[in-house]
Every structure is written in C-alpha cells, then in structure tokens.
C-alpha cells in the first residue's frame, strides 16, 4: 500500500510515492516535460507511477496534497482585495486562475486514477515543509523546526516543536506580506534575474560587493519584527514586476546590464546588502525561536533555506548547537512532507523512515535496456572502468555520470552530474563558462572523500551534517589554494560536498583519482542552463551531444555516445 505526496501549481511540481518499506520514488514533472520549473499538475509523473507501480484505489492509502488549496488562494487574494481598483491587474489574474489552480486538485487526480474522495487529503504548507525536515534528523524532539519561504497559505515563517509521540505544536507564525523570502525575490527581480531562478545568482553576486545599501534596505524590511514596508513593493498588485517606483528612487535604475563594470559593482553592492538583511533577519528569527522553544538544535526548511551562504554565516554566530537543512527544502521537497503527513495521519505516532537522500527512482526503473544499447557504446566494462574514467579526468576530460538512485533537490550529488578534475583550471573554466553557460561570478562546487575534507576545508561543527548534500559553504584552507584555486569563490568559500558511502561509484572514482594525484572533483548538475537535469537515457544522449561530452559513467561501465 502506497502513500503519495504531491506538490504542484506554484513552483516546480513533484510527486513522492512510498510504501515505507522498500519503495521510494520522488519525481519532478520537469523531468518528463523537459520544461525547467514546470509547475503544472504533475500528470506525467503520475502516469509514470501508475504504470510502474500499478496504482489503483485499492493499493493507495492516501494521496496527500502539500497545502490547503483554497486557503492558499484566498490568503493572497484577501490581502489584495482591500484595494480592488489599485490591485485590479493582480486580482483579475488571480480570479481567472481560480479554476486552473490547486482548488480542483481532486478533479485533476481523478482524471488519471479513479480514487475515493476520502483518500485524497490536504496537509498544510508550512507543516509539509516541517514534516519533510524530519527525514534529515534523528531524535526529532531535540529540534525546533523553522520554516521560511515566500508565502504559503498566508504564512511566511513558522516554527514547530515535535515530541516523541509526534505531537506537533506550532509555536510561532509570521504572516503575508511580511516575508523575507519575497523581499529577497524582489531584489532578485530588481537586479534583472528571474524570480525562483535567480536567487542563487544574487547570493553568488553578493560576495563581490559591500553592503553599502544596508541602511536603506533596513527601512524596507525590519529585521527585528520581520515587517515589510509595502511602499517599496508591488508583488501584491503587479504581475510583471514586484518592486515599486519608490525602490527605484532608493536604489537607482533596475534591470541594468550587469556585464558592464560600473553596473556590476553597483548590483553586487545591492546583492550584498540584501544578503546581509536576510542573514540578520534569520539571526533574529533563530534567536527568537530558540528562546520560545528552549531548543538549540534547528531544522530549517522552506525556499529561504536554500541560501547556503546564509547558513554558513549564521554558523559563525554561536546562536545554535546544530542547524540542518535537508536536501530539498523548497516546495518541491514538500511532496515528501505531504506523504509524511499522510503517513502520520494514518499511523498517528509514526512517521516515514527515510534514511537516504537519494529518494528518486533507480535508473533501471526509468529506462529500457534496449535504449542503452541503441544509443551508447560501452568502452570499458571490466572492474577497471572507474580507474579508466579517473585517468580520463586527470587528462582534462569532462565526464558525466548517470548511475544509482536519482537525487532529491536542486543539486546533483554525484549520480546525475558532470565531473572534471578540480586541479585542472582549464577544465574547470571550460565546464563553467563554455559548457554550462553559467555567469562568471557563479562558482562550481567541489566534491571529495570525507577523509580528505579537513585537509582542504574548515567548517563549524554545527552545520557539518549538511555537507553530505552540498547544503552549506565552508572555508577554503591554505592547502586548497595551492592546487585548486579555480574552485574557490571570491570570498574564500566553497559549496563542498563530501562522500561517505564506500559502495557508490562516486566514492570509487574519487579513490582512483586520489591514487592518480588529485583529491577533488568539480561536481555540477547534468543539464544545460534553462534545462532540467537529465532523467532518462534519451536526455543523457541529447545533453551529451549538446554539451559535447564524450564519456558517461553508468552503473556497469564507461560509455560513449553512438553516432546515430
């Protein structure tokens, strides 16, 4: 019997299916549609699951949606309706979307699978974030669970405690429009980046600037009581931009060409200031919540938690004993939280036991064997294929990976990645600028064996756990500057991932690489800018051709693409 959690309609849609025994399957709609950030009802994911797991009413406990659809729609509408004429564009859009959104979730589900109405349930937005966070820690009662994102069901921040009997208490909430997430998104928009996509660019950019606009930005977001000054924002009334003229008067012209030196410097300063406001806000939030809850260990979820620079800077303030951000803290990961809600709803004092970060399907579930034979040529199949691949990497080759279980979350953690030797600066630059088409101010992330970590990096113990899924930054040690300077960000940090599991191919390849004189690989997700990460072998083939990558590591060997 399966539990299914679904997150959809607002951010990238995802589905999580589990029986809490052997089967876990996390899927994103974008993997099937090949449209990055696809937020439509995850019809294609569900079709895949129905076919693979023979889903029917009889073998499903619950299908759980990650939030309350009407509440989510209404809370934003309710705020804007106070000024119907001023906010009419936004309201009309919102009204027209009434029947395209999650309110008709049950109808959408029923078009695919004939399921009883009492098996379709609805969690709550921030509760789903919180319940997903449980998967990242043991001894849950020791932690306070903080969620922080743009907005969900009219709430922007929330804090929960959970006892050993799984009694969940919500101890504090902040409400829309007072949202640090929307503040940061608005700055993202102002700087010319796409909201929900460009926030990570703002974070990278912030390291190049100084917080010269700190005082101005503190007037528009109060870091002490978490209140926003709506005179500077228009996300509640304008569909095409989220800031007002007043913000332009304060910060200058928006959407300037960032490639020009003067603009770059100015925008880096604005990004740096926004980053500081975010960090100080979160610092105050954590202080407040640890005081209310009496707990010093924190699980942080919600889209804001994806800001790994913030986590890094907070770790230095000695305001918590431990802070854990699970691999997919945003709305996409809430599908797992929704499934956990279903499980808890059924079992009352038990939650899902998810002891891995790789919750996606195995590659053999996704693909038919004939496709591998048709599209790829095995060039090394003996036990030495890992060693052969390591040699290629040392020679400056860029190699893709496609093995094991698929990752959850926005970061590829080795199983669907592109690697190059971090010692080879030409390879690193080629991968970053030419292949991945990333901006010059966005650094690539290193991956290395756990035992080598301390040789090259330093990190506060209180956030160390997040290293397994590339969730935090750490400081580069002197040793790293000697041979691996091309992976160090301008502020001396790296978004490092450590590998512990000795059975994985990623571990084995790092071992072989070490024997050949290099300890660190660059690890970036296997996709092209504006495209989702590869999902099946067809995507692998097409992306290898587009990126001009010659070799791919799979579970059973090193492969090349065939010429078709």
């Amino acid at each position, binding site marked *: 019997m399966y539990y299914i959690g679904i997150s959809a309609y607002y951010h990238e849609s995802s589905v999580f299916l589990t029986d809490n025994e052997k089967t876990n399957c996390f899927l994103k709609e974008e993997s099937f549609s090949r449209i990055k950030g696809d937020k*439509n009802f995850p019809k294609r994911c569900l079709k895949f699951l129905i076919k693979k797991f023979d889903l029917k009413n009889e073998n499903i406990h619950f299908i759980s949606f990650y939030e309350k659809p009407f509440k989510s729609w209404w809370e934003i509408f309710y705020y804007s309706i106070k000024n119907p*004429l001023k906010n009419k564009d936004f309201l009309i859009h919102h009204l027209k979307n009434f029947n395209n959104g999650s309110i008709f979730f049950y109808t959408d589900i029923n078009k695919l699978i004939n399921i009883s109405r009492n098996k379709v349930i609805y*969690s709550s937005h921030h509760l789903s974030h919180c319940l997903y966070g449980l998967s990242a820690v043991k001894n849950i009662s020791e932690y306070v669970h903080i969620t922080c994102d743009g907005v969900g069901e009219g709430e922007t921040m929330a804090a929960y405690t959970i006892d050993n009997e799984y009694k969940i*208490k919500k101890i504090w909430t902040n*409400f829309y429009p007072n949202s640090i997430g929307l503040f940061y998104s608005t700055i993202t928009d102002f700087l010319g980046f796409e909201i929900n996509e460009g926030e990570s660019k703002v974070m990278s950019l912030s390291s190049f600037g100084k917080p010269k606009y700190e005082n101005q930005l503190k007037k528009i977001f109060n870091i002490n009581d978490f209140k926003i000054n709506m005179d500077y924002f228009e996300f509640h009334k304008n569909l095409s931009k989220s800031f007002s003229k007043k913000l332009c008067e304060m910060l200058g012209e928006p959407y300037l*060409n960032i490639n020009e030196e003067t603009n770059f410097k100015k925008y880096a300063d604005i990004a740096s200031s926004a980053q500081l406001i975010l960090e100080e806000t979160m610092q105050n939030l954590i202080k407040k919540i640890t005081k209310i809850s009496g707990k010093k260990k924190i699980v942080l979820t919600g889209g804001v938690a994806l800001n790994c620079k913030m986590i890094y800077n907070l770790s230095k303030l000695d305001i918590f004993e431990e802070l854990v951000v699970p691999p997919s803290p945003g709305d996409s990961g809430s599908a797992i939280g929704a499934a956990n809600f279903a499980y808890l709803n059924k079992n009352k004092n038990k939650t899902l036991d998810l002891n891995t970060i790789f919750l996606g399907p195995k590659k053999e579930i996704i693909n038919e064997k004939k496709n591998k034979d*048709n599209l790829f040529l095995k060039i090394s199949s003996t036990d030495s294929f890992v060693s052969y691949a390591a040699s290629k990497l040392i020679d400056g080759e860029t190699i893709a990976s496609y093995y094991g279980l698929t990752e959850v979350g926005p970061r590829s953690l080795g199983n669907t990645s592109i690697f190059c030797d971090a010692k080879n600066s030409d390879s690193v630059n080629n991968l970053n600028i030419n292949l991945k088409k990333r901006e010059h101010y966005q650094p690539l992330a290193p991956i290395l064996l756990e035992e080598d970590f301390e040789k090259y990096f330093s990190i506060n113990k209180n956030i160390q756990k997040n290293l397994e899924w590339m969730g935090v930054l750490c400081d580069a040690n002197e040793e790293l500057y000697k041979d691996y300077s091309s992976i160090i960000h301008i502020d001396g940090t790296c978004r490092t991932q450590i590998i512990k599991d000795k059975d994985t191919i990623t571990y084995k390849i790092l071992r072989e690489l070490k024997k050949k004189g290099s300890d660190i690989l660059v690890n970036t997700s296997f996709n092209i800018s504006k495209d989702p990460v590869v999902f099946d072998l067809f995507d692998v083939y097409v992306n290898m051709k587009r990126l001009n990558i010659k070799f791919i590591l799979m579970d059973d060997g090193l492969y090349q693409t065939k010429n078709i």
Partner: protein
Amino acid sequence: MFLIPKSNLKNFDPVRCCFVLNEFATAEFSSAVEMLFAAKNINDQKLSEGFIRHALDEYKHCTIFTNIKNKIILEYKINKKKLSFVPNHIYNKGYIYKDHFIFEKKKINNFAIFIGANEEIAEKKLITFANYLKKHKPFAFKEVEKILKDEERHAKYSLEFAKNNNGFLSYKIKVIRERILSFFRHIYANSLNKFSFIFNPILITILIIINLVTYFLNLKKNTSDDDVMKNIEPKSIT
C-alpha cells in the same frame, strides 16, 4: 504565433528584433521538446533516431537565435529583462499544450504531416525575417541561413515520410487541412490575451462585491497551535 518584422522596414528596431529572436528561440525550444518526446515514445528505432536528430537541430537553433539576440542586446544596451527566455512561459505563450504533447494525440503519419506543414510555414516566416536581418545585421543573416537549410530538410523528410505512408489524395488533403489548422491556431494564439479584457468589467464588478463582503469579515489568524495534527482537517481544502 507572433508577428515578423517586415524586411522593407527602413530603420532597424533592435528591441523589436530581439523580441522576434526570442520568440523564434522559444518556438525552436518547444519543437525540440516535442521531438524528444516523440523519440522516447515511438517503437521504431530508426524513426526514434530521426526524432533525436531533429531535436538536436532545434536545440541548436534555439542557441543560435539566443546568441544573436544577446549580441544585439549588448550592442544596443537594451534592457534584457523582458527579452529573457523563461522555459515556463512556453505554456502561457501557447507553444506547448499544458496537458499533452502533440505526438500523444496524433498517429505517426499525421504527426509527420504536422511537422512537415509547420516546418514549411516556419521556414517562410524565417525567410522574411532573414531578409530583414540581411539588410541590417549581416552577421546574423549568415547564422539564420544555416537554420533555414535545416528547416528545409526537416520539412522535406517529414513530408516525404508522410507521402510514402499515405495515399496521394489523402496526403494532399491532410497537408491542406494542417495548413488551415495551423493558420487558425496562430490566430487563436495571437488573440489569446488580446480579447480577454472584454471580461474585465464583469470581473471588476465581482471584485468590488467581494471587497464589500470582506469588509465585514473579521478573519482571525492564530500564531500558535497546541496540537497541529489534531486541529487540522485533512479532507478540507480550507
């Protein structure tokens, strides 16, 4: 689905040109996604390989259009925010259906006719645009010429396949029908957002009524909850 600047325009309008380049890039990307889906779902290996090649070409075209656009943006210092390619907008612009790919709704012969007929239409539009670029941006014209050759080949292969798998009369009728459908589809797509304002007065009236009702509402918000699982109603959407 979009308007192409006429080649006899006297002055070069960089913003308009970038807008059209962005639309072409979006259309090519959408076509690539459709082809990739077809490649994954057809049982014939040779056809699957053909669809993969087609998808690769379309992705390449998308990159070419985007590169030209970026060069013009840099040269004329245009505000690029509204000219950026956002994958999710493909749905709103009507390039791809939200709930299905075209391949899911058509048999392979009809799908080939669909591709062939639409590639021909795209080619004609692109020729007009290429002439416009030839006059004002020769570097871009050379790049677009490469795309034109590919489009011509795609149309030819698709229609040849369709011709071989349909009777002569059936083939002709289907091609004409596809051209007519395509014409109306473009009209529909162009008018999608243009006429929606007709309903605005009704919607504004509804908004004012809701505003009056909410004026009397006193919705309380709880900042805390002692037992969340006990107090939540799982079957409720509110």
